[in-house]
């Protein structure tokens, strides 16, 4: 017998114990992740939202731990916050709609018009920009939109002006950043529509437009909803792109950011706005059955 015998024996005993006790196995599997996710992550989230009900001493900027709903009252009554919150939702919706409109012809081409042997390659071409750094892409647009940049050079012979830095540029850049997240689910959705479904529609006398409205669009709705989860929630929380190309534009993320050091409770209260909107959006989208396909 070799020296490793006792060690091997205890390993086998342990394995046997584990096998007989699935609950023990489960608790061993879950203890580390639960400590991390529930205790550390959910705990700190809960603490943050608790602090939204605290206030700040205006002179010292110290947090005063007295329960009050003042921050939320400010949120609803102050003109600035209402305006910025509405603008942020507007930007997120605009980005989502523009992404869907641009994504559709591209996805239609890659899924149904391009020769089948090219299709896998085209999917790679859609995915490739997602691996390039977020910051690099936003920075590229900063250069394109700059005075004396590519866009001005392209537009000036036509007598046009570029948008410059501002709200339009922010929407443009966010659309560019999240577009692949919209193309991909629509591509998958279009690919899965069986050809005979479309044939049946035209056999029954529907023209292209009618087939599109009555067959393609309803089938695609979950795909569009799935893509919109990304375009909407990623746009709503963004504050970096706004800083890079937005000029003086402020979105809800910027407000949260600028309040963190001076008034953490107010920042926390502001933070609840995108969270609540996104949770409601996810619940609404779940009804289309889109979340299960993510």
């Amino acid at each position, binding site marked *: 017998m070799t020296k490793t015998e006792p060690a091997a024996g205890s390993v086998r005993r342990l394995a046997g114990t584990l096998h007989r006790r*699935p609950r023990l196995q489960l608790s061993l599997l879950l203890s580390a*992740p639960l400590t991390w996710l529930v205790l550390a*992550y959910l705990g*700190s989230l809960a603490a943050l939202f608790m602090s939204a009900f605290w206030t700040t001493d205006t002179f010292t900027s110290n947090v005063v731990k007295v329960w009050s709903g003042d921050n939320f009252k400010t949120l609803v009554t102050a003109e600035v916050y209402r305006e910025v919150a509405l603008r942020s939702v507007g930007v997120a919706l605009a980005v989502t709609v523009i992404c869907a409109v641009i994504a559709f012809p591209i996805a239609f081409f890659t899924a149904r018009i391009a020769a089948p042997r090219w299709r896998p390659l085209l999917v*790679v071409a859609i995915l490739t920009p997602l*691996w390039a750094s977020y910051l690099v892409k936003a920075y590229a647009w900063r250069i*394109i939109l700059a005075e004396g940049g590519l866009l001005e050079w392209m537009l000036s012979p036509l007598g046009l002006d570029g948008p410059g830095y501002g709200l339009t540029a922010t929407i443009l850049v966010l659309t560019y950043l999240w577009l692949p997240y919209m193309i991909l689910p629509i591509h998958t959705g279009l690919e899965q529509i069986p050809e005979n479904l479309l044939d049946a529609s035209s056999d029954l006398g529907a023209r292209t437009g009618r087939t599109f409205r009555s067959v393609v669009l309803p089938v695609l709705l979950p795909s569009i909803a799935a893509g919109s989860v990304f375009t909407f929630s990623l746009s709503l929380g963004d504050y*970096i792109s706004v800083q890079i190309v937005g000029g003086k534009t402020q979105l809800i993320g910027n407000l949260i950011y600028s309040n963190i050091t001076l008034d953490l409770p107010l920042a926390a209260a502001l*933070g609840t706005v995108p969270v609540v909107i996104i949770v409601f959006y996810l619940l609404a989208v779940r009804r289309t059955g889109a979340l299960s396909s993510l």
Partner: protein
Amino acid sequence: MNLSRPARITLRVAAVLGFAVIYVPLFLVLINSLNPDRSSGWPPPGITFHWWADAWGSAGARHALVTSLKAGVGATAAALVLGTLIAFAIQRFKFFGREALSFVVVLPIALPGIVTGVALNTAFRTVLEPFGVGLGLFTVVVGHATFCVVVVYNNVIARLRRMPGSYEEAAMDLGANTFRAFVDITFPLVRSALVAGGLLAFALSFDEIIVTTFTAGPDTQTLPIWIFSNMARPQQAPVVNVVAAVLVLLSVIPIYLAQRLSSDTASGSRI
């Protein structure tokens, strides 16, 4: 669908235009790293490799790259362990709160980064600082791992769903114990899912800026933080251009690796 010829041509043109718009900014970044004009004006007045030499010598950029690599490796390792554990627990067991757990895993990536960032920042400062642990590389790794868990979890659970439990049972019938069955049967079958998940986790961590801003502290600069803080400085602009070009070129590596992995991993998408 029987589309008319003009409709097909229109769609083709629209798609070509779309792809052009998607790729122009990326190529522009590459060209700009060779642009002698400090303010990156268009068209470039010539070509220079001067900035590449400058960037090579830039201590700040190099240091930031090393920090990013360390943070990425640390976060990926933590995410691989946690994500795999959760995937096995959820796929193999029925327990109270199973649905809720599978939702909590997705939460860090679904909520805006700034909310996660501020929450972790406050928690770290109140819990860790009394123990003398300040914000730094460790807290960045913790923050990144929190949202990287989901990609590993998604990949592993997708694989486990498709893997019949009978393989492991067969191994056990042949006398293998729990560990032996895992090492010889289960692990080889989930390995490529782990690679795909790890790749995604590393890419997410390497690119992250918002959570990093709140968990890094003043002395820890990852590459995105370095780029962001130097972007608006005219003096640093050419070096930033080169770093951006390098990042665009480097993104070819994960694309190549993702293509090599089997197609049933979720390696294609970043979520």
